[in-house]
Every structure is written in structure tokens, then in C-alpha cells.
């Protein structure tokens, strides 16, 4: 499954786990997904560990993780070798210039999709924290841990009192 996920694995994971294999219900999937988003770090990796551990304990988690990471890792290592060896070739660097411009575009679309519901809600503090996190990391170039530790407690406190 891991190798079919261009630009993100989760939609494929849902199709395979819920619709084809029926290893989990839609609710279980959503709940596991919420948990893996709640945790820091790569979401899909977290998802595979949570799913695997529910299925077969430590062994399940390790197997799920290896299955998710193994094949893509092999492919990307081949690409890494090619890049380190031939990255200076004019044609290749031109192609990569095009692809990296497009890759940024995809990321901007992700941001827009995430931001839409947040900014449409009236009277919410959420956009303020999003802007502060953006400014701290992108404009001020502050280290992520500082920005996170500075903003997270305040943001969570607002969420706590706002309900």
C-alpha cells in the first residue's frame, strides 16, 4: 500500500483498511486518525503504529511501520544516489526546478484547504495563533521548539476557556 500514496498515504489507507479489508470501521478509522494527528511527529507514521499496536501489540506496530516505510525508503534511496551523482547535470536540475515549483503549489493548496474553515468562523482566536506561528517560523526564523513552547500553552488555554 505504501507505494501507492503519491503526495500522502492517508486516503489510500482509508480505502484499503476500511473499504477493502474491513479491518476497521469508519469510526475506528476516524478515531485512530484523530489520535495520530493529536500526537507530534509524522502523522502517517503515528497512524501505522497506533493501528498496528491495536492489531498485534508491539509486533503489530513494528510490522505496520516496516511495511509503511520499507518500500518507499528503498525507492527514495535510489533517487538519492542518482541525485547526488547526477544532480549537477543541467537537464536534471531544470526538471527539478519545475517539479519543486509545482510541489510548493500543492502545499499551498493544502494550506488553503486547512485555513478556509478556520478563517470563515466568526470570533475565533485560531487565526491569530496560526499567523503568530507562521511569523515566528517563516519571517523571524526562530527555532521551532521556542515558537512551539511559546505559543502552544496560550493557544490551548484559549481553546479551554472558549468552549
Amino acid at each position, binding site marked *: 500500500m505504501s507505494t501507492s500514496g503519491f503526495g500522502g498515504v492517508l486516503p489510500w489507507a482509508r480505502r484499503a483498511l476500511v473499504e477493502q479489508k474491513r479491518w476497521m470501521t469508519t469510526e475506528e478509522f476516524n478515531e485512530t486518525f484523530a489520535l495520530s494527528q493529536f500526537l507530534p*511527529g509524522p502523522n502517517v507514521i503515528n497512524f501505522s503504529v497506533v493501528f498496528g499496536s491495536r492489531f498485534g501489540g508491539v509486533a503489530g506496530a513494528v510490522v505496520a511501520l516496516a511495511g509503511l516505510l520499507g518500500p518507499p525508503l528503498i525507492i527514495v534511496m535510489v533517487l538519492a544516489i542518482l541525485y547526488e551523482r547526477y544532480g549537477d547535470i543541467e537537464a536534471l536540475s*531544470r526538471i527539478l*526546478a519545475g517539479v519543486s515549483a509545482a510541489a*510548493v*503549489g500543492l502545499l499551498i493548496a493544502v*494550506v488553503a484547504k*486547512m485555513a478556509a474553515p478556520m478563517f470563515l468562523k466568526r470570533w475565533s482566536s485560531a487565526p491569530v495563533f496560526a499567523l503568530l*506561528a507562521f511569523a515566528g517560523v517563516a519571517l523571524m526564523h526562530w527555532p*521551532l521548539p521556542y515558537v512551539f513552547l511559546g505559543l502552544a500553552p496560550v493557544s*490551548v488555554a484559549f481553546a479551554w476557556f472558549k468552549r
Partner: protein
Amino acid sequence: MNQHPLTSLAGYFALLSLFAVGGANAAIPEMHRVAVNVMQWMSDRQFADMYAIAQMSPGPNVIIVALIGYHVAGFTGSGVAIAAMCGPTCTLAFVVARTWDRFKEARWRVAIQAGMVPLSLGLIAASAFVLARAADHNVYALLVTAATAAAALFTRVNPLWIFVVAGLLGLSGWL
């Protein structure tokens, strides 16, 4: 900083992973800051290239850390980088998965989750900003970025085709 590169890799990625709310994309600016500015392992352009390669490859986005690791210290480097990026959070995920049901409905959990959403949005937006500055050197590249964003938002076209078109445009020498 006379640290061994492998020690730096392991330390940075392990620390980074714990603050990456919103997944690998939220961690991009910090990876960029460390790899390009602080450690000077690579140029802006190389970083943008690696992000592009990671996006073109199938599998989870976090795979970019393997590329950075390989660039710094070969196969060992990529192994160390992946292990450091995934190890701490996987352990956390495993532990939390067992106790999650108990506080699923707890108010503090809902508050933490709601408080994290805007931060992860801000961080991912920062990723887009940092990468755009590294990848878009002229007006044509900016146009490709804008067109891709529009296509991804308003159509259901497979990103792979966008990459093919953008790669050909790049090859033609416009970007």
C-alpha cells in the same frame, strides 16, 4: 560545533519530531533552518530539490529526512535520520494508543487538540513560504506554483500529472 554529523542528525531530528504538530510538512521550516542556515549541509536550491524528490516519490512525506540524511552521511545518515525522526514519536504513539480510550472525552484533551490546529496550520504555511523562496526564482516558476495550487484546489487532477508537466516546462528552460 565540532560534533560528528551523525550525532547532529540524530539530535536535531529527534528534537524536531516532538514539536512537529501537523506532520512532516510542519517540520519543513525547521529542517530548512538547520540544514541550510545552521549546519550548512546544503544550499537553498538543494533543499528545494530534495523536497521535490520526496514529493515525487511514493510513500509518506517524512521520507525527505532520509534524503537529507543521505546527503550528510550516506546510508548510515539516512538510517539515523529516519530512526531519530520516527523513534521518539512512535514510542509516544504506542504508549498513548493504550491509554487513549480512557481520556478520549476529557475536556483537556479536546482543548489541546483544538489549540494545536492553528499552530499546525501556521507551521505548514511557513513551510510553503520557505519552500517558495527556495524554489521560485523567477516569474515563470511563481506562475507554475500558482497554477499548481489552483489546479489542486479546484480540480481533481492527479498530482503526478502536474509534476510531469512542470518537469517538462522546467526542462524546456523557462524556469
